[in-house]
């Protein structure tokens, strides 16, 4: 390690520094009237985005091949930072309302984000796992942040225990890979597998355990059970963050695993992904229909969205469609903002004392809060995939990729489930506009710059991604096509001799 390596981590270090500052200043601040804490978290994230974008074309590996800076990592880092920004903006009012406006919260969001940024840049199993656990541990605490609320504690505990169980699967899978190939670098493992060093049976076991672990992390069936309980019990803004960010990071990791290490094992993972995807869509879509709690409904809806994403991953195993992976990347961006936006509206509505997140409570709200109802409609339409929103284009590209890989029947199943899902999204709109409220709706005293900015950003992103998909899509394409595919043979020695030396892609 030398100075050069540290420079590569400037965005992450900035976030860590900001988190430490946040933790240190907390005792110094007055108990009441503390406002604007979120900006201490948002500002470093914005700076980190700028720095990351600045260095987007400096493709190189760092720390003896532990992390890489390529367009793929850049795409995901920026997306994750943007998600963190929106999440922090959505939080302040809610924390204040529950008398838990502590800077720890923002520090935890930053730590989670750093963990995820390490995950998406990792090209080594050990580095990846460290990032994963940093993300996981921080998010367990976020889920239990309302520690006087038994539901929040329960969510945290469930999250922690099931999460640890899933980590066991992942560790087992990675141990099998390491045991057969003797390497921890993605590229070295990939080369060893390609050379035929790994027996078939071990590979099957490794793929299955890894899939199980990843499926848990993205809440895919049958490893999804924790998600509704956790999202419902967590503080709503934390649920907004947790339902989005970890999934993005894990999908990035899955794509790296499949591309660098397991590309030859597609006969194992591709059919299994199909099985998981169909199960996930089924669970997500049908269970969402019977929910009356909006947070649980959104939890199942996010499970269904993971199902669509898994479809596209499965399709990757059958044919190499030029825009297949880019479609996944684009979908993740669209999903991030529409889902956080929907949760964000719930955060806003929770300013009403009698709001218990049930569907009944949004009855007729458009008359009293037309803006809130309007923006919620936007997010619901986007989640349902109706043009001209981000959700439509994302689904369009995703299913187009599935069709182009020769799995038209699978795309048909996906579209059918997406049709089913329209039911529970449109139902929210029906309740908001066509039902009468059961009680007199009082004025929402929830005017908050933060919340407004967060919702505004999410809505803007949903509209912009829907109408001008170009820039993000181009970056997604670049991320995939300019993905760092491992050091060249002679460059390996060079990298050994001079750690951190730039390597041509």
């Amino acid at each position, binding site marked *: 390690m030398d100075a050069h390596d540290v420079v590569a981590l400037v965005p992450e270090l900035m976030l860590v520094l900001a988190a430490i500052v946040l933790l240190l200043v907390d005792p110094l601040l007055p108990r009441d009237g503390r406002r604007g804490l979120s900006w201490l978290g948002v500002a470093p994230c914005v700076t980190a985005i700028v720095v990351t974008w600045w260095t987007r074309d400096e493709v190189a590996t760092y720390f003896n091949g532990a992390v890489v800076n390529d367009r793929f990592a850049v795409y995901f880092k920026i997306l994750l930072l943007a998600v963190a920004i929106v999440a922090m903006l959505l939080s302040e009012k809610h924390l204040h309302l529950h008398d838990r406006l502590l800077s720890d919260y923002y520090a935890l969001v930053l730590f989670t984000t750093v963990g995820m940024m390490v995950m998406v840049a990792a090209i080594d199993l050990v580095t990846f796992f460290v990032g994963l656990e940093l993300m996981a541990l921080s998010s367990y605490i976020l889920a239990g942040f309302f520690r006087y609320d038994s539901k929040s504690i329960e969510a945290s505990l469930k999250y922690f*225990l*099931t999460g640890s169980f899933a980590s066991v699967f992942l560790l087992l899978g990675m141990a099998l890979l390491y045991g057969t190939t003797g390497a921890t670098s993605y590229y070295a493992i990939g080369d060893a597998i390609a050379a035929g060093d790994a027996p078939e049976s071990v590979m099957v076991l490794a793929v*299955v355990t890894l899939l199980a672990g990843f*499926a848990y992390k993205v809440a895919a069936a*049958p490893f999804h*059970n924790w998600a509704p309980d956790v999202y419902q019990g967590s503080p709503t803004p934390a649920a907004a963050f947790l339902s989005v960010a970890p999934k993005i990071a894990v999908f990035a990791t899955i794509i790296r695993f499949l591309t660098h290490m397991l590309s030859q094992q597609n006969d194992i993972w591709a*059919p299994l992904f199909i099985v998981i995807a169909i199960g996930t869509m089924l669970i997500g879509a049908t269970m969402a*229909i019977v929910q009356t709690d909006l947070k649980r409904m959104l939890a199942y809806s996010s499970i269904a969205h993971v199902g669509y994403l898994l479809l596209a991953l499965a399709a990757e195993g059958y044919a190499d469609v030029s825009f297949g992976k880019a479609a996944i990347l684009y979908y993740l961006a669209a999903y991030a903002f529409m889902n956080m936006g929907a949760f964000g509206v719930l955060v806003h509505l929770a300013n009403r004392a009698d709001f218990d997140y049930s569907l009944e409570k949004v009855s007729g709200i458009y008359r009293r809060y037309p803006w809130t109802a309007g923006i919620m409609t936007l997010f619901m339409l986007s989640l349902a995939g109706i043009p001209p929103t981000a959700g439509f284009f994302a689904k369009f590209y995703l299913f*187009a990729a599935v069709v182009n890989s020769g799995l038209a029947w699978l795309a048909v199943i996906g579209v059918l489930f997406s049709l089913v899902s329209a039911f529970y999204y449109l139902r929210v709109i029906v309740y908001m506009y066509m039902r009468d409220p059961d009680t007199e709706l009082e004025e929402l005293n929830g005017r908050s710059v933060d919340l407004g900015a967060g919702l505004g950003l999410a809505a803007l992103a949903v509209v912009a991604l829907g109408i001008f998909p170009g820039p993000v899509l181009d970056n997604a394409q670049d991320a995939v096509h300019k993905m760092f595919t491992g050091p060249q043979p002679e460059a390996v020695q060079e990298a050994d001799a001079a750690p951190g030396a730039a390597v041509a892609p």
Partner: protein
Amino acid sequence: MKAAVVLIPVLPLVSFMVTLLLGKRYFGEKSHYLPVASVAVSWLLCMFLLVQVERGQTLDWNAYSWIAVGGFQVDIGFLVDELAAVMLLVVSTVGLMVHVYSIGYMHGDQGYYRFFAYLNLFMFSMFMLVLANNYLLLYVFWEAVGLCSFLLISFWFPKLSASAAGTKAFLVNRVGDFGFSLGVMLIFITFGTLSYAGVFDSETAVGGGMMTAICLLLFTGAVGKSAQFPLHVWLPDAMEGPTPVSSLIHAATMVNAGVYMVARSSPLFAESETAMLVVAITGGFTAIFAASIGLVQNDIKKVLAYSTVSQLGYMFLALGVGAWAAGMFHLVSHGFFKGLLFLCSGSVIHALSGEQDMRRMGGLKSKTKITYWTFIIGALAISGAPGFAGFFSKDSILAGVFHEGYYLLWAVGIVTAFLTAFYMFRLIFMTFHGEPRTDPEVFAHAHESPPSMTAPLIILAVPSALIGLILGLPPEDGHIDNLLHHVFAGVLPAEGGHGFGAVSALLMALSATIGLGGIFAAWQFYIKRPQLPEMVKARTGAMYYILYNKYWVDEIYAAVIVNPVKWFSGVLWRFVDDAGIDGFVNGAARFFRGVGKALRPTQSGRLQAYLFTMFIGALALLAAWVLLQTGQG
């Protein structure tokens, strides 16, 4: 130049969004500030583009790639050439005037902000339609202006006839748009691209049949949008909308979109003689057909509506015989004088507290001086009085038709010119001259409109009077012919025009005489010998009856199409929809709800159960793989 091209549509769009979102609560009576300002800036930029184009600068620019999947690519691209510039001149000028006019006309209306928001949306869509550089974008905004038209026709939607008229316009246009969309698809299949440049410069050899099919399908769209026979029925009903809307959308701009599209597609149409002939005959027939109906209408706006249909027919006649520049010339001059005429009629209606029936008007001359004189200028222009705009443009069409050898169509045009002059001055005389037939109380209140309304009248009267002199002199080789020569160079005969000879001079004198003759006849009928109309009505009872009932086109459609369709959809609704589809949908909903309920117990909330599921899940994945393996092997 690129910045100007982007700003021209974007300014009204931004203004639309701001006005619609904030208008009701924050702007109220001041809702027009932003819309008028945005269109004014757009107008300045349009003038800038016009100057650039006059200097020979054109632009074909793909600003942004919207969709790119496989071989299918859609660009948001702009094309600024002579044709687009000429359209922009009309659209932006009349648009700005109508915006200003609406300040006075819509004053105090409940939906004041909404009206300006929609007008802005229309301006955005129309600018995009004109500036598009490919057929898909053209189609998208073709539909968008249709939507705005629908919103504005049924602006006073609590009034049943207004919302019905909106629906009718929408449905009739759908028929044409369906053809248009098929045409666009055929273009893509044939040429593999939708950009104008790509299609027109294509090396692909296209069979005559295919070319005719494409052109006729495109023309179907034009027939719908530009209200040509047999799809003209929506335009007269569209007069239910506020009068500024009639002026802007249903006279000066949107209805011209069909003409513009055919002119834009001239390289395609020139390849198909059949299609050209269809265009010419449809145009000629519509011209005389609508003019004859216009003779006996009593609603002041309906007369103007049929007049618009008729004049659009002229334009298609010109395009059909290959007098491309003449058609566009008439589009420009008609845009100005018809926009003016509608605004004048709005001023009359305003003065008489909403009265539209000319039988209850008369004698307004002294009460509304500005409206009267501007109306006269507009009427002289459309009648083809020598020196006025319509004289030059109409004459260049008739000369074109004559020189191309379509003598029958030329005769039709001449007769139409006579009818036009007649019904226009019938309108003038019935409205402004003679004894007031209005309710005395209403007449006593009759007053000239506020300056925000009369100023646009005066401003529009200037081009109505003079634009022919500016663009059309010398005849058939005027400024507009030279300007548009670049666009139509590929489709014009190589040896150039036929020149302005003795024949042309004779034709010109003839059409001047015809126009003045029509005015004289109207004077005879309605001023000199007011008993004449009744006499003629009695003499030609059947003829009058047919015209008065507009050839029963609406009734025929109702009997042949609307009622059978209603009956059929009733059947569909009862048996297919209620029993079949609803049954299926409800069944599906029940099914998925049932599945969800059945799966519910898996969500027990108990941690042990979750961990156990995960463990079983991992085993199941392994088992699934084994099953798949044995299944395959």
